[in-house]
């Protein structure tokens, strides 16, 4: 029997609520908007790409990247049916999401928190870290954590990053030589961005020195429902 404190710091924490940034990321609303071209919340980070390769390779041999690599490889394994997470350089892509793309800190924290929770659970069940397990045990661990809201969110987020690694322009660190596009017979557009032309390298917007945006949280409407529940009506125009 695991102590209660374990559950406070795991995928199975009953008080866990999906944070708003993730809700939006995973929601149908975002899907619809993305299909037509809109949205996502970002902030800035600034490390040069030249540092990436060396530090990525160093990072990969220890946690959290060892575990993340292991999870991504399990989610998209080597097989005859198509490229693996390794073939699409999914871990490298995720590394860039964390260190080079201007990803919200909350999201980065959640990526790493999940690693801790997964290994905590894996240790509790098998006395081993996730990456040391055989494939069958890995499957059991991931199925188990996917039964929790936080675990499901974490895995859905990683699968979302697999898709990005597979199908985004290679300059972002995944999809080498368009391997994902080729596999899925998708014809990419042109021109594609190169290093220096990625979305976070476009000319900057104006900055504001003193003031910060004020953000307020609106009240929750318990016991009420929206009058009209419909898909968002975004069109290409």
């Amino acid at each position, binding site marked *: 029997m695991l102590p209660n404190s374990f559950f406070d710091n795991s995928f199975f924490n009953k008080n866990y609520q999906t944070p708003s940034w993730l809700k939006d990321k995973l*929601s149908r*609303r*975002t*899907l619809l*908007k*993305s*299909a*037509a*071209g*809109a*949205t*996502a*919340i*970002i902030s800035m980070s600034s490390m040069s790409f030249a540092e990436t390769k060396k530090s990525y390779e160093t990072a990969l041999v220890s946690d959290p990247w060892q575990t993340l690599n292991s999870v991504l490889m399990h*989610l998209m394994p080597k097989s005859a*049916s*198509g490229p693996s997470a390794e073939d699409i350089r999914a871990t490298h892509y995720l590394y860039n999401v964390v260190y080079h793309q201007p990803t919200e800190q909350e999201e980065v924290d959640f990526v790493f928190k999940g690693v801790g929770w997964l290994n905590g659970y894996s240790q509790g069940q098998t006395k081993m870290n996730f990456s040391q397990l055989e494939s069958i045990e890995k499957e059991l661990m*991931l199925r188990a954590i*996917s039964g929790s809201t936080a675990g499901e969110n974490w*895995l*859905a987020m990683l*699968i979302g990053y697999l898709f*990005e690694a*597979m*199908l985004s*322009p290679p300059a972002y660190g995944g999809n080498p030589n368009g391997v994902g596009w080729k596999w*899925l017979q*998708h*014809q990419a*557009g*042109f*021109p*594609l*961005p190169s290093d220096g032309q*990625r*979305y976070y390298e*476009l000319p*900057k*917007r*104006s*900055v*504001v*020195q003193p*003031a*910060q*945006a*004020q*953000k307020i949280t*609106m009240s929750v*409407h318990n016991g*009420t*429902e*929206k009058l*009209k529940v*419909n898909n*968002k*009506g975004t*069109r*290409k*125009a």
Partner: protein
Amino acid sequence: MSYDICIVGSGAGASPVAYTLAKAGAKVVVIEKGPWLTEKEFFKDELAISLRDSYNPKLADEQHVIEEEYVTENGESYWQGESTSDSGWSFWNGNVVGGSSNFMSGYFHRLKPIDFRLKTEFGAINGANIADWPISYDELEPFYAQVESEIGVSGKVVKHPHQEPRSTVDFPYPPLAEHAVSTWIDEAAASIGFHAMPVPRAVLSQPAMGRKSCEYSGYCSSYGCSSGAKGSGRAALLNHGVATGNLTIIANAKVYKIDNDDQGKVTGVNYYDSQGRKKSVAAKIYVIACQAVETSRLLLASKSAFFPNGLANNHDQVGKNLVFSAGGTGQGDFYFDELNEQKKAELKQVGPFINRALQDWYQIDDKSFSGANSQGKAKGGTIDFLFYQNPISRAQGTQRDESNALVWGEQLKKNLIQEFTTYKTLRFEVFNDWLPTNDCFVSLDEEVKDKWGDPVAKVRIGSHAHDLQVGEYLAEKGAKLLEELGAKNISTSVSSYPPTNLMAGGCRFGDDPKTSVLDRNCRAHEVDNLYVTDGSFMPTGGSVPYTFTIYANAFRVAEQIKSRWQAFSAEV
């Protein structure tokens, strides 16, 4: 520095004025909140365009508050706002020089004469604030022709039951290369008595005016154009304006307040520069064109002793009667294994445009239609056909099984292969009038402020039930065509939610200052030297995307402004 003309915003409403006046010799300044990008900074990058929305502000920095209607358990309804920084539902459409015209699809359908007199033709509808336009189609027609020539519209005029009158025989540029499915649509439409028509596009089919022609990358809608073929205000007009030596563009500059004197005349525009420093600029004539929501916001925020409720708002009309585009979408799938090799190859083609629309029901005259008019007569709309690209978004539909559980491993790979290699989806979009009502308007939010500390726009997005009826009627027609084409899994989605990229109204034009903000020349009734030239002027929006009409009207108003400026200059 003092200018002749100061324009706030740089999109489809602003650029014709900047271009016309700069060519006429006026000293023009354009103030744009976003950065000044060129063709070199537009890529077919789904992350940039869609998933990270990088041509728009961060919603944590600049947001809107969207008010939706809720109902309690007791059946009482109320309006509640939610900041878009919380919801993630962006109402920005391209905050860069050239504005949202950089990212438009460029479906350039003209309005039709009937759109200018909706109230006269169909009568009032209970709960809607329908008003005829103060000008007729004939007054705008020469400027549609000007847009076709100067922005560059490619297309072909065909005989059609609802073809609007034209002063020119055909479009100045031949149609863009068409997808093989266009022919499928033509044949299917003919066989069921529909009239499929070629869609005019604001995309050059031939190099012209210093711009390259379309390169057919297959990614057009919502993507910035790297060849210059798409007729954005930046590529088609501002570049030429700058070349005159008379046009100055101040980018990364956010206007927060317009000043006026004790006669109500505008005396200057205040903005934050790229570093957040307060600056101001003065001119003889001022033009506001920040897209409907932000134009109303700026006027409402510009309070003074003369205008305590905001500039040009002493009759409390600014922000009222905002409209979006009603309608929705539909789609059907074609499975490759049900097609012969030739058809399969045709369907898989990527690059050329479908460019087909149906306007057979631009006016509905059908006794079975149970709209507001008992005779089955109503304003209808337009149906446009298209393919979507965006593979990452497409992949996102494969990560769950039928019971909504996450899948991974072999099952995920199988789902991806199934999704991408076994079928293709043909879609259509329905555009019909979003009736103006008292439940759709812009005001200033009292609590939420942007990164500069200024109140953000609060947008109430209520719609009229009639919009849904018309949208559903049209969507059924689109679905019928898909059925005739042999598509499977046909579905439609008609929504009362606004498409955030299709907005107009808020400063409607009219002859009565009590019920309109602008006069027929889009000059503020209450402010002698203030014009609004984006889509804000429209009392009703028509049933086509807005950009073409915004361009045409802005060219029309530009002639008025040019005459005023020439008169000013002559006085001096």
